[in-house]
């Protein structure tokens, strides 16, 4: 296997810049994900790596070889796409074996060796009992696994996987994620994996690159992007229920620094956090502003005002899950979501909120908080 290096890659479609000067390197044997919403440039990046599209500028290295001018078949990459694109008139076995029978590989494997390889990968993906079936007799989840098996039957320099399990239902997705990670661990292969689902990205990857409108927002381990998001965009993309983002003024009073959304929603910022907050603050109309992020798990709820930093908000809605409750509050024209243990606060009475300062994030404003 090989590593992949990308330097200053840009791809435009007319006036629209799909991939905007991105650079990253994916190590040999690494599981590297590209995460972003639709339109972020994820698939275009993958297509540039595969050689299906040509970049306007920038360089792509696979295993130290500059591949910009090589056609896809000479780059030695294997791809699996979101739509399965299986050959309907072939059996599952023949579909998986197809890459082994390419003209350039003719005669490399005996029929026995081929069968051995197909059965090995099929067993890893749990489709060994389906080898004689036709694709049309398979469920969506089974087809996606066949498509993956076909991509993984040969050992290229790098695997490029574009949302390969996005069509599976929630339950199957959980098991497919595990299968994929097991496979990656076992085979020590280099994988570049495109997804819009943060669970897949966190669960599977060694590192993740987050794209926003073609721009690289952050590259980091699952822990880094979750616990230290570099921007409000990254923070909001990762986590469920989503992180709360609140804009407010920064004010000084009696030597202390406060974050103020409105008069009855003001709390002191712990001294040791002030400097990190000041780094991202912006000035507007004579006041200093900052965007605070706090995940729903880190808001404490109580029926009593427990400290000077608590504030009261009206309850908008309550969802009771089996072991926890999600309480939504109305704040100006925004909603604040808190996730608490069931029964920890009586939501029919007045509720007081407190943001756990061990888990506060501060951001510059990179987009406006539209009404819901």
């Amino acid at each position, binding site marked *: 296997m090989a590593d992949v290096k990308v330097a200053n890659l840009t791809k435009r479609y007319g006036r629209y810049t799909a991939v905007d000067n991105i650079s990253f390197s994916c190590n040999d044997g690494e599981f590297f994900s590209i995460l972003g919403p639709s339109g972020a440039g994820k698939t275009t990046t993958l297509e540039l790596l595969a050689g299906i599209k040509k970049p306007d500028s920038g360089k792509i290295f696979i295993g130290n070889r500059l591949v910009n001018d090589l056609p896809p078949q000479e780059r030695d990459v294997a791809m699996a796409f979101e739509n399965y694109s299986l050959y309907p008139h072939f059996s599952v076995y023949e579909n998986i074996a197809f890459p082994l029978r390419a003209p350039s590989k003719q005669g490399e494997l005996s029929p026995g060796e081929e069968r051995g390889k197909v059965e090995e990968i099929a067993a890893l993906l749990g489709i060994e009992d389906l080898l004689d079936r036709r694709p049309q007799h398979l469920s969506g989840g089974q087809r996606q696994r066949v498509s993956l098996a076909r991509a993984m039957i040969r050992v290229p320099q790098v695997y490029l996987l574009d949302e390969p399990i996005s069509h599976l239902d*929630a339950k199957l997705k959980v098991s497919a994620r595990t299968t994929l990670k097991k496979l990656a661990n076992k085979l020590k292969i280099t994988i570049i994996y495109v997804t819009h689902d943060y669970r897949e990205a*966190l669960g599977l990857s060694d590192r993740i690159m987050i794209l926003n409108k073609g721009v690289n927002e952050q590259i980091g381990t*699952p822990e880094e992007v979750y616990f230290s998001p570099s921007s409000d965009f990254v923070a909001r993309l990762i986590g469920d229920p989503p992180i709360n983002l609140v804009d407010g003024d920064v004010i000084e009073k009696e030597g202390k620094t406060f974050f103020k959304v409105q008069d009855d929603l003001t709390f002191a910022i712990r001294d040791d956090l002030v400097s990190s907050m000041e780094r991202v603050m912006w000035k507007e109309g004579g006041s200093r502003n900052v965007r605070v992020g706090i995940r729903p798990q880190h808001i404490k709820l109580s029926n009593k005002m427990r400290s000077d930093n608590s504030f009261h908000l009206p309850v908008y809605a309550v969802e*009771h*899950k*089996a072991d926890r409750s999600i309480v939504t509050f109305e704040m100006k024209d925004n909603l604040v*979501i808190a996730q608490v243990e069931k029964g920890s606060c009586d939501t029919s009475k007045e509720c007081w909120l407190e943001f756990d300062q061990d888990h506060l994030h501060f951001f510059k404003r990179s987009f406006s908080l539209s009404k819901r």
Partner: protein
Amino acid sequence: MSRVDAEHLWKIYQGGIEAVKDANFHVEVGEFVAILGPSGCGKSSTLRMIVGLEDITRGELLFDGKIVNHLSPRERNVALAFETYALYYPLTIYENLAFPLRAIGMTKTEVNKKVKEIAEMFDLSNVLEEKPANLSGGEQQRVSLARALIRDPNVTLLDEPLSHMDQRVRVILRATLRHIHNRLKLTTIYVTHDQEEAISLSDRIIVMNEGIIQQIGTVDELWNQPANKFVAGFLGEPAMNFIAGRIEKPLEISITTRDGKYALRLNTNIEDRHIGSEVTVGIRPEKIIPHLNKKDNCIPSLLEVIEPLGETKILTVKLDGTELKVVTSQDIKIDQGQVIWLEFDSRDIHAFHRETEITLIESSRASG
């Protein structure tokens, strides 16, 4: 608003396909009930029979005690919103919302008042003059929901209205739906394949599989006292783990692995006639406590995969041939490939009959 009763409802399609088999349930006035199940379970056929889009093959459907089998959808006065918004694209949002009211001959002033009211609730006041195409998907779905609810229907039916929304929008729309339900208290039936959505929104859930109602209950009832293995496995993600076991004594189940036989103590007594039976033990991934060192009554397993998910980690462990999921806090320090010892809390152990899959032992956590 109406109470809905379904009595021995059957839907048999041409060719004898039984989509709904002898469904019995009721929905109270003002109640929010979800019909939950995988695709092909009969939930959509049930919904279509309630709306009147599908003939009822056998059985009776009653609104407020009156049989409505023969009534058209219009005469039943039901409101419906789907996954696709089905808005009128040449019309403004205002006109879209006003449409069902004008259709029933409401005066201009009344229409205006109603539209303003519902727009306020769904946070659509400042987009009333826009055309649907200028709105985001989430906003369009709010218009679709607002239009369904605007004319005091007897019953509101919602068919997977959030299933293709992105996650953040879904969380917020769920809160909006719950908020509005608390205010309007409309009798609502919500069809979904998404267990999380059903759990979050509903007062009660009807779980269906293969045309048959498996269980009807509150979230707590379904969670702690599932009627069978299907219900137990369908609610929760990652799903409940299932392992082969044997009931040894009144308060003890054993699990046998290559490494030996492990006794699980139970909290609930079991009838004598089940002693000696082979069962399927069920335990939720959140209820298995992983230990890094050998511990009494804990089962050794091989840690195959760790998936970090922010606050939690999902561990996949192997017990002989069986894979189990364990959900643990993110700060645990462990590595793939190591052996860990699993502790099952006796309060959280379920057991199902090996063949019939009916519940023999339910969790002893108090409901509510």
